[in-house]
């Protein structure tokens, strides 16, 4: 065993296996050992990571002449050595079988829904029609932050949230409401640094007011089950619930001064 691990080919295989185990299982089970949340890695990301590792391995074995020669040697011998006729024959059968199996596995019918290629940040329009009047979103601030008591707005927002949003977005604002698993895509977690923490309050207002039906044509289909809350809530109600979302999660809304510098994926 030790002999194989000293050979570049053996080392490459060992690195490949170790990387796969780390990506497939390490990422799932190691972080919880130090108190960090984790979950299984989607197969698309596993594939992406493994491709990167394979490219890295090829760079390593071939950036040095001696290592490259040693790396190729066993493969070369299998391909041309008269004594390796059996191994050659096995490879000749096994390789097409493997390719056939992978192809079959990729194309066989499945009951699961197709993988969605969804973009997560719909682009907000410059202005919207809200309950019969035009609101310009660009530069729009939450009016409640400069009017009355923030604590009162928070309490109003909290009541509205628990009356209307709880079932989907959950008690902890983490997108884990009772109905959450019934939706695809699942409701957003406001605790995540990639959701409301990245957005101005005007964008959050637009998303709440217009819901799934108001999402732009570009990037469709969105499949969002979010109702258009402008049909049920007043403007101040929506602004109050926005105050609650930010105060409760501890995130700060994006300000207009820093538009343009960051983008999420």
């Amino acid at each position: 065993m030790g002999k194989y691990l000293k050979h570049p080919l053996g080392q490459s295989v060992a690195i490949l296996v170790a990387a796969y185990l780390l990506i497939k299982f390490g990422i799932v089970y190691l972080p919880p050992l130090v108190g960090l949340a984790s979950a299984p890695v989607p197969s698309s990301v596993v594939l992406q990571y493994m491709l990167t590792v394979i490219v890295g391995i090829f760079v390593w074995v071939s950036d040095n002449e001696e290592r490259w020669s040693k790396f190729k040697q066993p493969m070369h011998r299998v391909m041309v050595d008269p004594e390796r006729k059996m191994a050659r024959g096995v490879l000749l059968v096994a390789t097409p079988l493997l390719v056939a199996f992978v192809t079959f596995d990729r194309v066989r019918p499945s009951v699961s829904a197709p993988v969605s290629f969804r973009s997560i940040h719909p682009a907000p329009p410059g202005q919207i029609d809200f309950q019969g009047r035009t609101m310009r979103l660009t530069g729009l601030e939450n009016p409640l932050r400069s009017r009355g008591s923030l604590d009162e707005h928070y309490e109003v927002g909290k009541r509205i949230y628990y009356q209307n949003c709880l079932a989907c977005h959950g008690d902890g604002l983490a997108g884990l409401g009772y109905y959450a698993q019934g939706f695809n895509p699942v409701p957003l977690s406001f605790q995540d640094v990639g959701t409301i923490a990245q957005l101005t309050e005007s964008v959050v207002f637009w998303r709440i007011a217009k819901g799934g039906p108001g999402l732009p044509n570009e990037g469709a289909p969105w499949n969002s089950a979010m109702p258009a809350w402008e049909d049920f809530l007043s403007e101040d109600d929506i602004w109050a619930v926005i105050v609650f979302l930010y105060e409760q999660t501890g995130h700060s809304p994006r300000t207009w001064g820093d538009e343009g510098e960051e983008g999420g994926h």
Partner: protein
Amino acid sequence: MNGARRWPVCLGGIGLVTLLTLVSPDGLLAQEISRSYGDFPLIGSRAAVWIAAQVHLLFAAFVLGVPMFAVVAEAIGIFGKDRKYDKLAKEFTRLLLVAYSATAIWGAVLSFLLVTLYPRLWVYLTQIFAPSMWVYAGLFFLESFTLYLYYYGWDRWAEGRAKMMHWGLGIMLNVFGTIVMFIANSWLTFMMSPPADVTPDTSPDMVQFWSAFANATWMPINIHRMIANVVFGGAIVGAYAAYRFLTAETDEERAHYDWMGYVGNLIAIGALIVLPFAGYYLGREIYEFSPGMGQTLMGGFMSWLWIIQAFLIGVLFLAGNYYLWVGMGRIPGAERFTPYTKYMLVVLVAGVIVWATPHTMIASRAEIAAMGGTYHPFLGVLGVMSAKNTAVNIMILTTFLSFLLYRRANKEPVVEWAKTGTMIQGVLFVVCAGIVIFYGIYGYFVTAIVRIGFSVYQVLAVIATIFSVLAIDIAIGRGAKSRGAIRWGQMPERSQYALFILAVTFTWLMGLMGYARSGIRQHWHVWEVVRDTSEFAATPALGYASQIISVCVLIFFGLVAFIFWVGGLAEKPVLSGVGSEGGD
């Protein structure tokens, strides 16, 4: 042969002028436009214009980028009294002649297609930009003939004052080419970011020329393209050298093209390091102009392109470093450093993994349920800009370290403070990496506006480290003893494929990100002014776009391969004699 090379340029120029005359304000513009769109068989109007524009742009980028470093190489030859750089500059320029013809032909094709397939838009633009189009045509002629004088006068004006005049021609070639690009950029950036006072009801005759010309995204595009052209030119020159290296028949040829490939790679990777800052400026201006447009670009349906871009740039970093590491095999003394390359490789691979980790993951229904959303609870932290900025800065720093080891490989410093200097360099690297990682982690604990400032600190730390470490290295290397000359030409053939990968990846990236820039106009020819009412108004899907772009890349490289092959048939290479001289 020379005449044959000139005719396409002349054809392109004549075609352009003819078109401009046909649709000048006194001609077609005065008449009623009877139709808005034409039809193109099989692939449709949009794909036809798209392919013509993309291939034209690829050739144009090459012919604008190469003169920049050709003139620098000539200056090194003149002021450093090193003939091999002069010969290298001449060979760079030789590539320009043929590529210039192709640029002109594709420019004419693009113009014809625009006039016949998008007549309403063409007339609209000419009503605003006609004077600049005439100037463009004039400068096009000046640029062409300056290029001919520059190349064909190379051997005649080789000494003394005549040589300086010749170098001046090279500078003028750059000036004309840059102005030509700036003019064309104004047309396309106007389509993205027209002045605020231009509305759908504004008559094009009433649009103020200068406000349309110098619009919000004009200068950011100018700067971004200038740098990108150098990157692209370096990469294509590198690929050309690789092709020549692989087909070389003598050791002298191999040595020359090995060196040329090294210079091309150095130019491409060196300029690539500063390109993200120009891209950042452009992105910022797009957001400033329209937050919705910016959101579409970075976070909306175009955001997947950034993941592809991250992966491809990762490939560029890996290929660039790989080329340097393999190249160490032909440098006496480099064996001291080769054990360290595996650690740098681990850093680069980790950097690529972090940089290309998507925030919103492609996942099946079951996988999304297992993650509790499309954000992964653990890997999600790698999907935001704090992690990505950190990864890319560490990758830049690692690439610079590779270059430094390559540079130092065959040198034996003689200055007394060499050890101390090297230690200071090491400390600078460690401190810089510490700053980058510190701000990367700290960025998770502050608001967006503070976090954005951190990326500036990270970049400044890396740039400052690169300049100071390089300055120390130059001082350490003064009068250094050589452990032996670089054995130019003794490069494994597989290393040359890294140069091909660089060129193809750069080309692909230009097409993909160009689609992103242009596609964010969505269903507008001119953003929120001239609506696209054709059957192709819908923004093309990413899959379709990547197919069209791949076709453009294939056409471009097919033509490049043909042109270089034809060029090689007729002329002998201008060998620099680098193999016998050594050098670095």
